[in-house]
């Protein structure tokens, strides 16, 4: 992955998140406070502007900058979580113009770790971790199995989607939805859904 692909991914993610603002908001209204869509739109609108305005020399830089932008713009629970994830992802990449598949695997692990360290969620808590975790595992396994980036990204997106959909049945144990207790079951988690959108964007821009 080079700077051009990184920015293409992030632009596609921004487009997807912004396009699905209302959907994300609706999911969050059901079991949260109805701002996830607007939070993500605000953050990714700023991300798109930053991508336009900045000349990057290293691929890691791109993600560090994007993470910082999300922390500074999103607020709520998702801002620090996504922001830290992207920062950790960027920091884990090697310096220079591009990163290899193995680097991406390591960076994804670092990002996931940042999220769980900060938010304390474990799988099954009905959070974005339930899409993020399976996506990282699927990506890693695909790479181990010899897949290229397009295939690994497609697998990650599929796993994220499955993970997001599977949150519907869960009872939340972290974040705002946990206040609803058992009433949180029956609704798909908004953060898991936006995580899916972000992995889907990577699959889209790398698809052959």
């Amino acid at each position, binding site marked *: 992955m080079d700077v051009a692909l990184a920015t293409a991914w992030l632009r596609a993610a921004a487009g997807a998140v912004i396009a699905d603002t209302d959907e994300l908001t609706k999911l969050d209204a059901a079991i949260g406070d109805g701002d996830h869509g607007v939070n993500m739109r605000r953050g990714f609108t700023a991300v798109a502007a930053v991508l336009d305005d900045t000349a990057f020399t290293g691929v890691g830089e791109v993600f560090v900058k994007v993470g910082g932008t999300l922390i500074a713009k999103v607020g709520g629970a998702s801002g620090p979580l996504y922001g830290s994830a992207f920062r950790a992802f960027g920091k884990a990449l090697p310096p220079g113009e591009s990163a290899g598949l193995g680097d991406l695997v390591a960076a994804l692990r670092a990002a996931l770790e940042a999220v769980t360290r900060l938010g304390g969620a474990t799988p099954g808590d009905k959070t974005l971790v339930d899409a993020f975790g399976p996506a990282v595992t699927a990506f890693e396994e695909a790479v181990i199995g010899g897949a290229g980036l397009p295939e690994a990204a497609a697998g990650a997106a599929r796993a994220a989607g499955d993970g997001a959909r599977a949150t519907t049945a869960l009872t939340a144990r972290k974040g*705002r939805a946990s206040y609803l207790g058992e009433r949180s079951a029956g609704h798909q988690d908004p953060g898991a859904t936006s995580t899916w959108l972000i992995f889907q964007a990577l699959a889209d821009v790398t698809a052959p």
Partner: protein
Amino acid sequence: MKKFVNDPADVVAEALAGLAAAHPELRVDAVEQYVARADAPRPGKVALVSGGGSGHEPLHGGFVGAGMLDAACPGEVFTSPVPDQIVAATKAVDGGAGVVHVVKNYTGDVMNFRMAAELAADDGITVETVLVDDDVAVEDSTWTAGRRGTGATLLVEKIAGALAEEGGKLAEVAAIGREVNAASASFAYALTASTTPAAGRPGFDLPDDEIEAGVGIHGEPGRRREKIRPAKELVRSALDAILEAKPTAAGEQVIVLVNGLGATPLIELYLVYGEVATVLAERGIEISRRLVGNYVTSLDMAGLSITLTRVTAEMLRLWDAPVNTPGLRWGV
């Protein structure tokens, strides 16, 4: 959606402009998005900074002023503020004696304030955090994000703010804030959902004869849905939950806050206060002070919360100390 707004995206910024125009005794930083006392920083004084999503007004911006907060960081509606904003406010009011962050216990608020505290520490500012988690509708277990911060925030900010004003040290101010929180419990009902400017429609639908019991202040549904009952009964249920969580013996003293969530008329809040007074009198609990009104709101939600804080003589003294803010004022 019908609201007195222009572009929904500009609501918070424009309301802050109005706050700045209305209150020359406050300084509003429109770029960093915080509200501070115009006379801050006050050298040697411990500063109090709070913040959280907008939509709970007068909390927190309306509680900035002598005897209460030094600064408030309003986030977008129902969205916690971001670290940069909190750091900017913290730096703006730090008088060298340290800063207390009063943080309501929501994942987003906690994480953003924690990041800000780390950044402020890098700049040599000592920050103590007081977490408010008084809402007994949510169980405090590893199966939840912990209890939410609601009505007690006002009491923490008032009492800790008074101690800071009279020269309390950082550790003391933080300690009494935590003590007030530990002595407080709240329970809320919603009759209708609130509508955020961004969403433009109510967060949930409630049939004409049902209410949500155990709601927070972010327009989310509560712990359970139930049929509307007479005020008398709702008050008894709420007080049962509160007093179970924080057992209070006959003869103990409390401050009572009957707090409207936004669209509940004062006439109903007073009626409810009357019921609270009746129940507490039966139990021999003495109401030392009380506050009835809209203080910790949830936009246009019809509903109310009841907060009881068991108080010591010292807390009462600090409660009675002068306060001069847009939302709370006495003694000056």
